[in-house]
C-alpha cells in the first residue's frame, strides 16, 4: 500500500509540470494481488503481483492529452505530465470538451479489511487444499482459485480534486469435475471472512455429483430458473452493451430507443450504487467525481444511462460519476438487481417443465437491438419436471434477447449474491424465474 499522503504528495508534485494555462489531473490505481490457482486437485500456479499506474491528463482549453506510466519516481511522473501536455498541444480542439470536472467531496465508504489485504500464501494454499481434498474424496477434480489483495484509487487535479479510496478484495472460485459433469461456485467481496469456503466447495461438488450422466435435450424454448451466477452474466452484458451514455448517444445501446418505456417485467429493478457496502464500493470515478446512485431500470421501465463529465455536459445533466477508466465511455460497474419475495426452491416449484441453469459461458452480443446474446450453459444444467430438479442435461447453446427475457420475468429470489469479478465489476443479484429462454443448439 502506498498510502494517501504519499500518493497525494507524488501527484501534486507531478502536476507542477503542467504548463501555464493548462489544467491537469492524475488518476492513480495501485493494486497488490496474490492468487493461488489449483487444477487436477493440486496447486499449479501461485502468483503475487503489484503495480501502480498513473493516468495523466492535461487539458489546454478544448484540447487534452494523456500519458500513462507505472514509473512513480519524481522524474517518471513529471515526464508523463510533460508528455501529456505535449500531446494536448498537438491535439485538434474538441468543441464539446467541457474541461476537467470541478472538485467535489466523495463520501467515504468502508471497503478495506487488513486481514484480507494481508492474507498470506499459506492461508490461500490451505483453502485450496481443503477444496481439493473434498473433491478427491468423491473422485472429482477441483480447479479454481483463491485470491486476495487490495487496491488504492486516487484522483488529484490542479483544480483541487483530492480523492482517495482503499479497498480490499477476495475471491474463491471452484469448478468440480467428473468425466461427464461439472459444478461451479464463486464467492467474493472485500472481506475474506465473509466467504464460506466449505459451503462453496460443497456447492460445486454437489452439482458435479448430481450432474453425472447428462441426457440429451432438444433445443427449443423453455422456462428457466437462473442461479444468481447466470443473472450476473445478464447484468454484465446489459451494462457493457448499453448502460453508458456514449453508447446510447451513438445508437449502439439496447437502451437507445427504450428510454422511459416498460421494456422489462415490473418485477425488474436495476440500479448502480458505488456506495453500498454489500457490493464492492468505489465512491468516485476516474475523474474524481462522486458516484451517484443511478436507477437503470425501475419496475421494468428503462431509466438510465450513467454519465461521465463529457456525456453529461452534452446531455445537459450532471455527471453521475461513472467514468470507469482513464479512457472510454461511462460504465455501470456496481449494479444491484432488487431481490423478489420468493425462495429459489419456490421458483423451481412453479415450473412444470423447464431448465435450471447454474451459469452461462462465453456469452457474446449477436445484435445490439434487444441485447441479443449467444452463449452456452455450463457447470450444472438440469431439467425441471413437475416443480423439481430432475435429470442433468448436456450443455445447451442459446440465442436470446436479454431484454425480452427480463420482460418475461415471473419471479426473483428473496436473497441476492455478490458476484465480484477480477476487473472490479460487482453485480449483486438474485436468482430469477424467466418464462421463456431460447435454446438453439446442444453440445457433444
Amino acid at each position, binding site marked *: 500500500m502506498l498510502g494517501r499522503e504519499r500518493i497525494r504528495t507524488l501527484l501534486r508534485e507531478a502536476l507542477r509540470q503542467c504548463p501555464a494555462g493548462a489544467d491537469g489531473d492524475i488518476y492513480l490505481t495501485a493494486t497488490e494481488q496474490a492468487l493461488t490457482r489449483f487444477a*487436477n486437485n493440486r496447486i499449479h500456479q*501461485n502468483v503475487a*503481483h503489484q503495480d501502480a499506474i498513473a493516468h495523466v491528463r492535461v487539458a489546454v482549453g478544448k484540447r487534452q492529452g494523456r500519458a500513462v506510466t507505472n514509473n512513480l519516481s519524481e522524474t517518471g511522473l513529471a515526464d508523463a505530465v510533460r508528455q501529456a501536455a505535449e500531446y494536448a498541444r498537438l491535439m485538434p480542439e474538441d468543441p464539446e470538451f467541457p474541461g476537467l470536472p470541478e472538485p467535489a467531496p466523495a463520501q467515504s465508504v468502508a471497503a478495506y479489511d487488513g486481514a484480507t489485504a494481508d492474507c498470506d500464501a499459506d492461508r490461500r494454499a490451505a483453502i485450496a487444499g481443503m477444496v481439493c481434498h473434498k473433491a478427491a474424496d468423491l473422485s472429482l477434480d477441483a480447479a479454481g482459485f483463491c485470491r486476495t489483495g487490495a487496491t488504492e484509487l486516487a484522483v488529484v487535479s490542479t483544480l483541487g480534486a483530492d480523492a482517495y479510496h482503499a479497498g480490499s478484495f477476495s475471491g474463491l472460485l471452484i469448478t468440480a469435475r467428473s468425466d461427464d459433469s461439472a459444478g461451479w461456485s464463486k464467492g467474493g467481496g472485500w472481506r475474506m471472512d465473509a466467504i464460506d469456503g466449505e459451503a462453496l466447495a460443497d456447492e460445486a461438488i454437489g452439482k458435479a455429483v448430481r450432474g453425472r450422466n447428462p441426457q440429451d435435450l432438444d433445443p427449443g424454448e423453455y422456462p428457466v430458473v437462473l442461479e444468481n451466477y447466470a443473472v450476473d452474466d445478464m447484468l454484465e452484458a446489459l451494462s457493457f452493451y448499453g448502460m453508458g451514455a456514449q453508447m446510447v448517444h451513438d445508437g449502439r445501446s439496447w437502451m437507445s430507443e427504450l428510454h422511459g418505456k416498460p421494456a422489462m417485467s415490473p418485477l425488474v429493478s436495476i440500479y448502480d450504487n458505488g456506495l453500498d457496502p454489500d457490493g464492492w464500493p468505489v465512491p468516485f470515478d476516474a475523474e474524481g467525481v462522486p458516484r451517484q446512485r443511478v436507477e437503470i431500470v425501475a419496475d421494468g421501465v428503462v431509466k438510465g444511462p450513467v454519465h461521465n463529465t463529457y456525456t453529461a455536459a452534452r446531455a445537459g445533466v450532471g455527471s453521475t460519476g461513472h467514468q470507469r477508466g482513464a479512457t472510454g465511455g461511462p460504465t455501470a460497474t456496481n449494479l444491484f438487481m432488487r431481490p423478489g419475495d420468493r425462495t429459489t426452491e419456490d421458483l423451481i416449484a412453479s415450473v412444470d417443465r423447464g431448465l435450471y441453469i447454474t451459469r452461462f459461458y462465453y456469452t457474446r452480443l449477436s445484435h445490439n437491438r434487444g441485447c441479443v446474446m*449467444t452463449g452456452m450453459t455450463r457447470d450444472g444444467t438440469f431439467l425441471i419436471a413437475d416443480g423439481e430438479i430432475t435429470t442433468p442435461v448436456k450443455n445447451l447453446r442459446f440465442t436470446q434477447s436479454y431484454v425480452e427475457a427480463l420482460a418475461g420475468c415471473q419471479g426473483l429470489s428473496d436473497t441476492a449474491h455478490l458476484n465480484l469479478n477480477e476487473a472490479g465489476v460487482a453485480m449483486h443479484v438474485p436468482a430469477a424465474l424467466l418464462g421463456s429462454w431460447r435454446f438453439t443448439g446442444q453440445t457433444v
Partner: protein
Amino acid sequence: MDPLIATALDTARARGAEYADIRLVSNREQRIVVRNGVVETMTADESVGLGIRAVYQGAWGFASTRELTIAAADLAAGQAVQIARASASHNGSGQTAARLLGSPVASRGSYTTPISIDPFTVPLDDKLSLLLEADREMAAVPQVTARMANVVFIREERTFANTEGALVTQTIYEAGGGVQATAVGNGETQRRSYPQSHGRQQGCAGWEYVVAMDLPGNARRTAEEAAELLTADPCPSNIDTDLIIDSSQLALQIHESCGHAVELDRALGDEAAFAGTSFLTPDLLNDYRYGSEQVNITADSTSATGLGTFGWDDEGLSAQATDIIRGGQFVGYLMSRESATRLDLPSNGCMRASSWNRIPLIRMTNVSLEPGEWTLDDLIADTDDGIYLETNRSWSIDDRRYNFQFGTEVGREIKNGKLGRLLRNCTYTGITPEFWRSCDAVCGPQHWQLWGTPRCGKGQPGQIAHTSHGASPSRFRDVRVGVMR
C-alpha cells in the same frame, strides 16, 4: 549479466529454488483514437517491471515488482520461492524441477522485429492526419451515427534469463490500425469495419504496415456498406447451406475452434475453471480425424508480421514451426516445457506472458490454415447455392471447443455460381470436427492473409495475448445458418 538479473537468480537459488527464471520487460505503447471527428484518445503508455518464477519441490511460485532495483529484485525472488514453498506444502514432495521441465534450456542471443519505419519516430501530425482524413470520409455517409478510426504502436523490450544458463534479449514492435462505421436506420443498427473487426488489424511490424492499409482510401466504402446493410435482406433463418468464409472470419474460426483446442494445458485440465478444457485429449494425438484432407494447420512463430512471432518464447525456447493438423489428422499441440514433459515430448515454444507481472501460459503463436489451390472466383463459380461470409461480428464457443456460433458483418448470397444480394445479421453454427470435416476447398496463396487477434483472454489473473492466424477463403458444406432471434 545484468546485476539485477544475477541477484534475483542467486537469491532464488539460495532460498532453495531448484529452478528459477526472470523476465525484465519494458513496454511502450502509443494509442490514438478518433471518434466522431474528435481525437478521443491520444496517449503514451509505459510499463516497466520484472517477474520471477521459481520451482521448489516441483511446485511453482511467482512474484513481480515494478521497481527495477537490486533490492526489489531480491525481495521478489525471495517471495517467489516462499510462494513455491506454500504450493509444495499442499502438493506434497516427490517432484523435481528436472522431472517437471525436461531438458535444460540455455538459449543465448538477441532478436528484433524486422521493420522499415520505427512508428515512434513518425510525427504525430502524420498519424492524426491519417485518422482524421479517414473519419471525414466516413462522415460523408449520412446514415452513419458513430465513426471510429484508430492506430496503435507498441515497442516491448524483454530480457529472459534462467538458472540453466539462458539469456536472451528481444525487441518486439507491433503496429495496428482500423476504421469502423455504425449506421442506424430502418429499425436497424449495423456496423462495418476495415481491415477487420474488433477495432483494427495488427501485426509485428512498423509504420509501413499501417500506411499499407490505406485507411482513408477504404473508409468511405466501409461506411457506405454499413448504410447499405440497413436495408439488406436478413440472413435466411435456420437452414443448412454451403458457406464460403472469407480469410478474416476464418482466422477467428481457427483461433477459437483449433488454436484454443490444441493448447495442451487446456487438454490436461489446467484451465478447467476458466477457459475450459478441450475435446482434443492426449489419447487422440496422432489418432483423430479433426478435419477433411484439405485441412492443414501449423503453429509458426517465425511468420512475417505475425503477432505470435518472436525470437524465443518466455521459457527461452526458439521460435519454430510445427504441424497441428496434417491432412485433417490431429498431430500436434501447443506446449510448454512442463506440459510437453508430461507427454514425453519436447516443448514447441508456446509459453507467453502478457506482461512482466504475469506468468507465461501456453498461448497461440501464429496458428494458420495452409493455402490450397483454388482461386476465389473459381470457388464461387463452383458453388450452386450458398452464402459468402465476411468479417467477424460475434463469436462464442463452448468450454470444450465443440459447439460454436459466429456472426459476420456481411453476407452475400451465392446462386448458380455468382455472388448475389447483400445479407445482414448472418450467423452460422456447428460442432468443430463436423465443421472442419465439411471443408472441401481452400483457396490458394494469392488469397492467403495473416490476421492479428490482439485480444485473446486466458488465465487467472487474466492475461491478454496477441496472436495471429493466416487463412484464405474456404468452402464448408451444409452448415446451419441464420440463428438469430
